[in-house]
């Protein structure tokens, strides 16, 4: 009775949780007008002395939100003005442009006022901000050396800006802190603004390894710098729809045990394999009769050997491109499952041989979701020859426009805009003081220090000087526009690729205690029907390794399907996924119990349905699957059955790459 109540409670929790996630995604964002009114109302009321801090903090939050919306509006108006410019315009048309300009002026004025208010009240909430930031204190900017015109002091903090080059704000990080090592590993999880800062930081550290005095080198870093500047400048407001699927959002990796294992939350097996080692601990049972805890380790043999050999994640991946043997094994995974209820101390995971409940081998023999697949070569060649060349024309022309004309005495690139040139000189002076340690940790520390200097300097970017320099502004805007077009075209191809087919084969040897061991042969196919959805189908056959007396050699056959729906990242944990699965199983004979006895009248058909929610914990490689499974009966009991499962899966790829990415 108690267990039924618990199951019911689990079901309700999972369903409520799903509703919360969906609700969180659909909740309407506040409007400009609403935020203005709320700020006015708060300002009109003197707060209770005990609530003064909360009052100030709320005001600051609302101001930040309002400023973000206004910055978007500003960009939109600037974009409209840019698009509508016409040399021989009619008076009515000019009037309209004047109204647009007027509107833009008002928006800018309101932003300036908000920046002033935010700056004036910053100290009140500063201590709280400090709690969520883990960055070292940035090096002080040489304010005295910077020309007054270079200092739009109320400029928004880089960390608070959402821009065109900013496809998604890292929600888990409202203060704007981000770990560049995580960005290098999963760049598509972050905004292009963040990418610009982190990759520029990495470039600078690379330069410093060759010459410790160097900083930003335009010959090599112009793209990254311009991306970071664009993020700061908010010139363009084309919204970024060019995010790619993140590693953590991948729904094609199976880390947990198969559906027959005790305690598994999986009804359907997925096609992908982890690159190094995945571990899953899952509690409950999806389809087996005995609930328990199954711990599954899934290894990629090549990745694991590289990890043991202390070879970097990316170096290893790169090296096996030219090695057919390594390429073959990169597509395989070996799994070992342990049933903690077995062995001399049931209920305690010992990792001993007696607790091994299954071995498995998986090989991915078709993977059309890899953009490097030969199938897409012609398409990519065409893309580079057309869209790539178009983008290069735009980029080269506009970078050239940003730079001074080269001469025999000054051959190297320099910004044409004087304020920008001064800003770059100051930034490089600050960067000159940073040294790079000889170890990997030293390098990471240097990247963090460089990143802090860049963020600090971007906050004092000479925005007004740039905005008043038509040629520089136009070059930056045109570059952003060309880059957006390029990325949009690239995304179209990548979207098609994400619908590609993945086909795998898996063999599992299930080791039983009192009954004959079984072998399971399973084909797994995945296909993206459109959007970011994923459809998986399984077909499998299970045979007894040794034919039991009076029974068929074939134990069962099964067909299963699953539909995965990515939920996005509404709570800032990472990309969650909701899955709906179904499975049909035909038992060819009456089932055997764990004790080895035959359960009469159990031969026949079993149908299962499952709802599963998988929540990753950002940047950790951990995923928490919660599932509810419904069945018309179990293998041993001809009664309806409902089970709740939860657990966690662990993908070592993420951690390993973080510790030693190169």
């Amino acid at each position: 009775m108690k267990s039924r109540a618990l199951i019911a409670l689990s079901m309700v929790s999972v369903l409520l949780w799903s509703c919360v996630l969906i609700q969180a995604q659909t909740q309407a964002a506040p409007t400009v007008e609403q935020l203005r009114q709320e700020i006015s109302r708060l300002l009109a009321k003197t707060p209770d002395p005990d609530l003064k801090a909360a009052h100030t903090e709320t005001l600051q939050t609302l101001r930040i939100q309002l400023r973000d919306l206004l910055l978007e509006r500003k960009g939109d108006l600037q974009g409209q003005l840019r698009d509508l410019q016409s040399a021989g315009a009619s008076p009515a048309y000019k009037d309209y442009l004047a109204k647009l300009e007027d509107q833009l002026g008002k928006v800018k004025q309101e932003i300036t006022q908000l920046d002033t208010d935010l700056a004036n009240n910053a100290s009140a909430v500063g201590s709280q901000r400090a709690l969520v930031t883990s960055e070292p204190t940035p090096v002080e900017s040489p304010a005295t050396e910077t020309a007054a015109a270079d200092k739009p002091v109320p400029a928004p903090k880089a960390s608070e800006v959402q821009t065109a080059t900013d496809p998604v704000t890292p929600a888990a990080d409202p203060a704007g802190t981000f770990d560049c090592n995580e960005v290098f590993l999963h760049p598509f999880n972050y905004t292009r603004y963040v990418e610009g800062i982190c990759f520029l930081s990495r470039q600078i550290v690379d330069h410093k390894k060759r010459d410790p005095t160097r900083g930003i080198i335009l010959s090599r870093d112009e793209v990254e710098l311009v991306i970071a500047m664009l993020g700061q400048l908010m010139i363009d407001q084309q919204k970024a729809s060019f995010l790619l699927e993140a590693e953590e959002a991948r729904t094609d990796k199976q880390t947990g045990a198969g559906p027959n294992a005790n305690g598994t939350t999986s009804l359907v097996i997925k096609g992908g394999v982890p690159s190094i080692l995945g571990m899953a601990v899952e509690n409950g049972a999806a389809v087996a009769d005995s609930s328990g805890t199954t711990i599954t380790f899934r290894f990629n043999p090549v990745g694991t050997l590289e990890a043991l050999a202390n070879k970097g994640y990316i170096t290893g991946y790169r090296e096996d491109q030219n090695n057919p043997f390594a390429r073959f094994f990169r597509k395989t995974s070996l799994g070992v499952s342990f049933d903690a209820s077995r062995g001399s101390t049931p209920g305690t995971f010992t990792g001993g041989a007696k607790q091994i409940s299954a071995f498995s081998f998986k090989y991915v023999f078709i993977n059309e979701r890899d953009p490097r697949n030969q199938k897409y070569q012609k398409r990519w060649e065409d893309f580079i020859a057309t869209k790539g060349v178009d983008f290069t024309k735009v980029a080269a022309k506009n970078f050239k426009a940003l730079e001074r004309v080269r001469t025999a005495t000054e051959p190297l690139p320099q910004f044409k805009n004087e304020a920008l040139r001064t800003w770059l000189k100051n930034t490089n002076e600050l960067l000159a003081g940073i040294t790079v340690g000889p170890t990997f940790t030293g390098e990471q520390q240097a990247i963090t220090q460089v990143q802090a200097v860049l963020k600090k300097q971007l906050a004092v970017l000479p925005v007004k000087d740039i905005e008043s320099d038509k040629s520089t502004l136009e070059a930056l805007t045109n570059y952003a526009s060309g880059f957006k077009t390029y990325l949009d075209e690239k995304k179209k191809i990548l979207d098609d690729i994400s619908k590609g087919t993945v086909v795998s084969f898996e063999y599992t040897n299930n080791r039983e205690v009192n009954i004959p061991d079984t072998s399971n042969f399973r084909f797994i196919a995945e296909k993206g029907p459109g959007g970011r959805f994923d459809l998986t189908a399984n077909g499998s056959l299970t045979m007894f390794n040794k034919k039991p007396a009076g029974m068929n050699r074939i134990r069962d056959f099964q067909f299963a399907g699953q539909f995965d729906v990515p939920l996005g990242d509404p709570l800032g944990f990472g990309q969650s996924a909701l899955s709906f699965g179904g499975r049909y199983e035909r038992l060819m004979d009456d089932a055997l119990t764990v004790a080895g006895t035959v359960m009469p009248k159990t031969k026949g058909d079993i149908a299962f349905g499952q709802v599963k929610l998988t929540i990753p914990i950002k940047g950790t490689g951990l995923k928490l699957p919660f599932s509810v499974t419904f069945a018309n009966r179990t293998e041993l009991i001809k009664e309806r059955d409902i089970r709740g499962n939860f657990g966690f899966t662990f993908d070592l790829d993420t951690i390993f790459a973080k510790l030693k990415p190169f």
Partner: protein
Amino acid sequence: MVVVDELDLLFSGANNEFITMTFTKHNTVWGITFAFDDEEDEAHSLLEGTPIKFQLRRKADGGPTVLRVFFHFINASGTGGSYDSNMIGSRGGSFDEVPARRQEGDLVPQNIYTFQVS
């Protein structure tokens, strides 16, 4: 061809000297495009396995020849791709970089090669 400053990608070469640049990709679909500052509104894509080959010409104002190379990266993860480069002057001198560029998500990084012509 002489390397004047490898970090600044600054080189010097003789008038009429040929420069040959080759690139090698790792863990990415091939994608190199380039443009010379002297060519208005022109850009080119480089076929895999073929070099960029051009002749240095002394200009009347003594200004350098500027080549902008853009590195396109295409793979599933946005990370781990790279290009190596090799540059050879027909009158001697070479310059290798391994890697010349590392992948930066879906940014398209640029190397600006500047050649002073004597």
